[in-house]
Structure formats: structure tokens, C-alpha cells
């Protein structure tokens, strides 16, 4: 059992795999290209103060934002990835895991936390894009499954924050079956009448979209997030046409009926708190 406290000095993260949170004094926005002090970005919930671009952050930052005093109890950190298939592409999966672990401040592509939001208990399973592209492997599925067990024990709602490039190819069919596993386990949560809030963030694609990310009782997304089943490049190659502006962005999904609403990161905690209370006060 480990506790995480959001520190005033800011959290150091690596810049590996396009995680845009800086460890320097200045941060350059990938959207509007303006350079702003890192401290300003942190104090603005990692949203660009100039153009409201929502920087890609992971569980460390999200837990700091949504939980009271920025405190969450981290669960199942003892689960470690394993190269069961002995998969080797240009490098062995084993080495890929080792390398990622040495550079990353998280232990897998998903971290589970428990804490309170304005005094109300909430279990959060948050994906980490800086761990092999937020890909869904066995640990992601197992942690979600166990997070649901905690919800059942504590009678607490579940929040999953999705941010994923898709499948963990190096786990082949085991990766695929995590879609089945998480969806099957969500039926148990539904049976217990505990609400499941799904927050889709940039980017949410592939198997994650085609399983738990789309199965929330409430589906919400951060502004401008890329959300889809097939990636834009694959679609472009298939239809041999340019894709319309804003295609597969949060606003597009809201318009087509797949989201309940879009929520700005600065308003996320209050929105979650309202939802939890509204679902409790039956």
C-alpha cells in the first residue's frame, strides 16, 4: 500500500513517448506553440493558459487533480508485467518492459487509486500513456477487474480515465481478451448498481474504445481528445480521402451521440463530485 501526495514542487516525469509534461522551467504548448512557465501549467491543471490545450498527463497528475488534498491510496502496485509469450520484434518484449520501467514514474499502463472527492469515496483506474503507449495488456485488465472488486467492497463508484494507443501487441490474444475481461467484469458492477463513470482523454483508440471506455453509465471526455476505434491514418488509407476537420474529436463524438458531455479538466473534480452525489441521493 503506497500513498501519493501531490507535491508543491511539481512532479517529475520523463518526456518519453510524447508525455508532454515538462520537468524544466518552461513548457512549450504543442497546440498554440507558446512557451509558458511550467509552474503556471501545473497550477492550471496541466491546461495551456493561453489556448486551453489539455496536455497529456498520467495517473500521477490526475489523482492530484481529482482527489481531496491530492491524496490517493495506490492499489495493486505489486502486479508486474510478464513476457509469457516470449515475444520478440525488433527488441524482446522483456527488454521493452525493463526499459520503460527504468524511464517511467508508473509501474504499468494503468494505475488504480482510491480516495475521496469532496468527502465521497471513489475508485479510479487511470491509464498512463507513457507506459508503452497506454497499451492494454494483461495488467490493465487485471487491475480494472480488481478495481471493480474494491468498488463492490466499498460500495464506491468507479471512474476509468482512458488514454490509450490500443492493444499491447506483444501480448497477442491475451491483450485482446482484456477487452472481454473488463467488459464482463463491468456487468458485475452494473448488477451491484454502482455507477461507472468513463472519462475519455487524448488519445483513446482501438481496443480500449471498443470495450470499457464506451461502456460508462456516463461517458465524458476532455475537450479536443482524439477518440475512435480505428486510428485516423488507417481510415484515411481505407477510404483514400482526407478526413473532415474535427473528425474523431470529443466534440464530434458528442455531436454523434456517444458522449454525455465534455468536461474541462479544471472542472473535472466538481463534476465528478456532483455526479457521485446525484447518483447516491436516490
Amino acid at each position: 500500500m503506497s500513498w501519493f501526495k501531490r507535491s508543491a514542487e511539481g512532479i517529475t516525469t520523463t518526456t518519453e513517448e510524447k508525455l508532454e509534461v515538462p520537468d524544466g522551467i518552461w513548457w512549450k504548448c504543442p497546440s498554440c506553440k507558446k512557451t509558458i512557465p511550467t509552474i503556471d501549467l501545473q497550477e492550471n491543471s496541466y491546461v495551456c493558459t493561453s489556448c486551453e490545450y489539455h496536455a497529456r498527463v498520467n495517473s500521477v497528475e490526475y489523482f492530484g487533480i481529482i482527489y481531496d488534498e491530492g491524496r490517493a491510496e495506490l492499489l495493486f502496485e505489486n502486479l508486474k508485467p510478464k513476457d509469457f509469450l516470449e515475444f520478440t520484434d525488433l527488441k524482446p518484449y522483456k527488454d521493452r518492459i525493463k526499459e520503460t520501467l527504468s524511464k517511467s514514474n508508473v509501474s504499468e499502463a494503468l494505475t488504480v487509486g482510491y480516495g475521496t472527492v469532496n468527502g465521497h469515496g471513489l475508485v479510479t483506474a487511470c491509464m498512463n500513456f507513457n507506459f508503452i503507449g497506454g497499451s492494454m495488456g494483461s495488467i490493465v485488465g487485471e487491475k480494472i477487474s480488481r478495481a471493480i472488486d474494491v468498488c463492490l467492497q466499498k460500495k464506491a463508484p468507479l471512474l476509468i480515465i482512458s488514454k490509450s494507443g490500443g492493444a499491447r501487441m506483444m501480448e497477442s490474444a491475451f491483450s485482446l481478451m482484456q477487452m472481454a475481461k473488463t467488459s464482463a467484469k463491468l456487468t458485475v458492477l452494473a448488477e451491484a448498481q454502482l455507477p461507472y463513470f468513463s472519462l475519455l482523454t487524448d488519445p483513446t483508440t482501438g481496443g480500449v474504445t471498443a470495450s470499457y471506455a464506451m461502456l460508462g453509465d456516463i461517458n465524458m471526455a476532455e475537450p479536443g481528445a482524439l477518440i475512435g476505434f480505428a486510428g485516423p491514418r488507417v481510415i484515411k488509407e481505407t477510404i483514400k480521402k482526407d478526413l473532415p476537420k474535427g473528425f474523431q474529436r470529443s466534440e464530434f463524438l458528442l455531436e454523434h451521440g456517444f458522449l454525455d458531455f465534455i468536461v474541462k479538466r479544471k472542472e473535472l473534480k466538481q463534476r465528478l463530485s456532483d455526479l457521485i452525489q446525484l447518483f447516491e441521493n436516490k
Partner: protein
Amino acid sequence: MTFLDFEKPIEELYEQLNKLKKIGENGKVDIQSTIIEMESKIEQTKQAIYKNLNSWQRVQLSRHPERPYTLYYLNHICSRFIELHGDRNVADDKAMVGGIGEIDGQTIMFIGQQKGENTKQRQYRNFGMANPEGYRKALRLMKIAERFNIPVVALIDTPGAFPGLEAEERGQGEAIARNLFEMSKLRVPVVCVIIGEGASGGALGIGIGDRILMMENTWYSVISPESCSSILWHSWDHKETAAEQLKLTADHMYQFKLVDGVLPEPLGGAHHDPERMAQTLKDTISNTIRELKLIPVNDLIRDRIQKFCQMGFFDE
């Protein structure tokens, strides 16, 4: 018969045999013994090739242009079959078929992807790549089955869910996710059989059940060997290696306990004797459903969820 690259030695022997037969027809020489010799050589070569297939060769067999597809099986294994159309919302997806049928006096609701048998049909069937309305049609039929206590059988054969613009607009991801969720708790026996390609979420979208079975020369993976090669090796040239690395054959999947059984195919693949393959499929479905009907439905669902929840590997 279309021969695949690794079947060339068999093709050549057949050509020699045909030549021999022609000589026998118009010649005075008695070549009967040579023909018999040749036939036994063909048999030996077939055994040698088909008993030692590698992963990529199985992928090739799963895509063989003469391989039987879903509707062939349904028309051959059902004493009666009525195809049902449409998702009652957007369209009738031609890549996903379904209907109500009967095997050995048992009514069954069937769903499955459908590929086309010639160029025109292949386009009509969108190469077996369903749109969201295909998954929603399948769900509609499964819900009818649940209401009337009719077991469900899904025949899986797809290179993937269709990655198109409209598919995304209409929520391909949501459609597949919804099926995973609903199939997990469907209150009737569900049997899934992979009869060809089991590619990724497009296959899994009708793939949650009490028994998951694979025909011998099929594959099941999170990604096709070609796409895997292109992403991880940055080139299309490593599909054979990718196929090996993905461990995607029926044997692997059974060994990993990700599927519950493997249906033997006729030597050389289902297309070498489609009727015999259909008979194997029919018997398997019939027996499996009889067995599943004995299990109380709450136990059935509990075990189904439990089975999928055990899938995965990690250190603790």
C-alpha cells in the same frame, strides 16, 4: 482447386498424375501401377506438408478463397434456416448475417460474419468487415434469442471490423463494446466457433460465450500478422515472423486456455471436404448445446464471466 505457395509440390504431383492418366487413356502401355504409385506419393506429400504447418501457413489456409463461409455452413447444418435482416436502426449489414435455424430438433439463433465467394460478392459482403449496424443486428438477434430461451451460436470469420468514416460516426467502438457487455450476461447458452479469420475486436465483437471453439486452420489474434509486421517491424515483410511471434493458431490458443476446443479439419483444410467439415461443426454444436442446457443459467453466466476474468498473465 487453388494451390497456395507451400502447396506447390502437391500441385506438381497432381499435374504429373493427370498427364499419366492421359497417356493411360490413349496409349497401349499399362501404367496402372505407376498411377497407384503416384497417388500414394501424393498422399505422402500431403501428409508431410499438412501435418507440419507453420503459423503463417495456417493463416493462409484460413483465408483460402475456396474455404466455406458462414452461410454455407448454416445452409448445410440446419434442417431449417430463415435469415433475418437489419438492425432496425440504420441498415442491413451484408458483412454480418444471422437468422433462426434448427439442428437435431433444437432451435438456434445464428450470427456470423459473411465473406463473398467472387469479386462481386466480396465487395457486396465488404470482405467480411462489419460496420456498427452489423454488430447491432447481431445483438438484436441475440436479445430475441434471450427472450425466447433460444441458444446462440456465433460463427466468426473476419479480417476485422470495418475501419471507415461512417463506421466511426456511427460508433464502431461502442457497438463492439456493447456486444461484449451484453454477451457476457446473456441468459442463454452461447457457443462461438472461429471458422476462418479471428481478427481482433471485430472478431471478439461476437465472440463472448460459454464455449469458444476454433477450427484447426484458423487464427485468433489482437492484430493481423501483416499489420503487426508493419507496426512493430516498420515493414510489411515480416508477416511470417509476426505470425510465429503472435502465437495465434488454434493449437496455441487452446494451450493458453483462451479457447475451449479445436475442431479437426479434413486434411489440407476445410475446403478439401466442406461437407465433412459441416458435419463436424453440426455434431459439435449439437453436443455442446445439449451439454450447456443442463447448466442452470445463473451458473452459466457466473462461469462465463469467471472464465474471461482469468485470462491474462503477470507476476505478483
